[in-house]
Structure formats: structure tokens, C-alpha cells
């Protein structure tokens, strides 16, 4: 399969994402420049972390109008797999590919630390290689990761099992202390209605080797590569 990593001006996890996906057997990885309008027949598009267009105005708000995003939206409309990590998640929300918004962290600080994630739904195309309730350790690094959705959207997300990852403590419990950004219901990642667009704040691509502190992200990357329509 072929994975395409989009590079916006200001992306800074593009190379990490490239490495992480490259490590998976049978996966070919390509970079896609934001100014291009060609997805080069990739099977999965990755919107990596960073500060696309300097995060001016709002994180992801300018990036959503990059030429490649038109193609990404068409691609996802026709069932193509798209995953947005951190800034990529922000771009997906601004593009309307996922519902809700990411606001400033509730403590108003940029948060850069390890978190523990619980797999809330192992039945999505992206998470079939994971176990329900499995815990993973990986870093978050963001100033705007405080997920918000209005009450109706939130109850729809919850009732349709579209919250894919949640911040929990070591015991697997959702607590305020385990939540790095004040995200509603401890939400760390969500999926769209059709199940082909995933957005998450934590960085699996930064947890793929023991020297980085955790290899847990590799499980998520591997599982994402198993996505088949």
C-alpha cells in the first residue's frame, strides 16, 4: 500500500510520520506538497503535526484552503482513508471532515508530555489491529488540543462509538489529571461517520522506537496501515 504524507509550510512532523510509516512492511511512503493538486494515487493520506501556515488565525484554518486539501476532501468523500495527527487533526476539523473544534488548552499552556490513551473503539478500519480498552503511552505536544463539540454533536459521537481514543490514567480511568488539555470527555481522537477519516492529538509517530521512550505508537501506525475499504 502507499501512504502520502502532506507537507504544509510549517509542518514539522512530516519526517517523523514518513519514518514511522516506512518502518511497516509492505508500505511505500511519499510526500505530497500542499500546493500540488495530485494525490499520486496513495491509499491513505496523512496530515502530519506542526504549525501549518504558522497556525495564523486559528490552527488549521489557512491550511484547509491549500490546493491539496480540495483533493483530500474529494478523496475522503469517495471513501479514501485520511488520518490527521495533532495539527493534521486541526486541519480536518477546520475542513469540516470531522465535527467540532480544538480550542486553546484549558490551562492556556503549550503542553508537551507523555499521555496514556485508551482504545475506545477497536472496530474501525484504522484500529482493527488494536484491542478494545488497550492502553498506549505516547507524547502530546500542542497548545490547542482542547476538543469541543456542542451537546448534540457530542452525544452523537459518543452514542455512535466515534470517540476512538481517550486520555486516561495508568489505571485506564478518565480523570481530569490525565487529560492534558481540558478536552471534553477526555477525547483524544475521533472518527467520521463513514469511518474513513480519523483525527487524533497525540503523536504515535513520535513513539516508534525505545530510544524515544515508547514503541506504542508503532502499534497504531501498523494498525492504520491495515485500513481497507
Amino acid at each position, binding site marked *: 500500500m502507499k501512504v502520502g504524507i502532506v507537507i504544509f509550510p510549517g509542518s514539522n512532523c512530516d519526517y517523523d510520520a514518513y519514518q514511522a510509516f516506512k518502518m511497516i512492511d509492505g508500505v511505500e511512503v511519499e510526500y505530497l506538497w500542499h500546493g500540488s493538486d495530485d494525490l499520486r494515487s496513495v491509499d491513505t493520506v496523512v496530515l502530519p503535526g506542526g504549525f501549518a501556515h504558522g497556525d495564523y*488565525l*486559528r490552527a488549521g*484554518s*489557512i491550511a484547509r*484552503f491549500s490546493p491539496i486539501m480540495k483533493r483530500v476532501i474529494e478523496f475522503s468523500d469517495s471513501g479514501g482513508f485520511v488520518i490527521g495527527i495533532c495539527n493534521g487533526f486541526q486541519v480536518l*476539523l*477546520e475542513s469540516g471532515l470531522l*465535527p*467540532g*473544534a480544538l*480550542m*486553546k488548552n*484549558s*490551562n*492556556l499552556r503549550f503542553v508537551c508530555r507523555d499521555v496514556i490513551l485508551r482504545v475506545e473503539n477497536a472496530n474501525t478500519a484504522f484500529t482493527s489491529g488494536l484491542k478494545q480498552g488497550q492502553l498506549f503511552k505516547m507524547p502530546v505536544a500542542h497548545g490547542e488540543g482542547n476538543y*469541543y*463539540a*456542542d451537546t448534540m454533536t457530542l452525544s452523537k459521537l459518543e452514542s455512535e462509538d466515534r470517540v476512538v481514543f481517550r486520555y486516561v490514567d495508568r489505571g485506564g480511568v478518565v480523570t481530569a489529571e490525565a487529560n492534558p488539555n*481540558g478536552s471534553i470527555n477526555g477525547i483524544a481522537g475521533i472518527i467520521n461517520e463513514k469511518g474513513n477519516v480519523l483525527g487524533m492529538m497525540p503523536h504515535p509517530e513520535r513513539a516508534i522506537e525505545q530510544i524515544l521512550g515508547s514503541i506504542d505508537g508503532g502499534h497504531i501506525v501498523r494498525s492504520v496501515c491495515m485500513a481497507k475499504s
Partner: protein
Amino acid sequence: MKFQAKVTVSLKESVLDPQGQTIGNALLDLGFENILKVKTGKIFTLEIDAETESDAARTASEAASKLLANPVIEQYKVEVVP
């Protein structure tokens, strides 16, 4: 004709504004006991070439709803000055 439009973007009432709260607390610490609430926002000043004032207002509203504000969490107000 050239018009100037002022677009004020702020968080919706239903959305928590931790920045506003923090600033409010700081003001309270400074003795501003009669300031009950602080809301933060952004102001954009747009210079617009348009035939009429209402055309300019329409352009500014379009810009606000398409890019300047995120309708999920924000609201906006447009004022046009000739």
C-alpha cells in the same frame, strides 16, 4: 469606493473562554471589583473596494463566515465605515 470594515470575532456564549476568565481574575486582583466578566476576541480591519456600503458589508460577512470565524465555536459582528 473604498470602505473599511471592522469584523469582531468572539467565542460563542456557550463556549468556555479560559483566556477571558484568567484576564478577569487578574483584573479582580488589581482591584477592579466592578468588572464582572471579560470576553476575549479578535478584531480584523478590512479595506474593501465596493460600490455600496451594503456590498462591502456583504463581502466582509462572507470573509468572516468562510475564514475569519470558526462557526463551531465563534460568532462575528461586521461594522462598515465609509
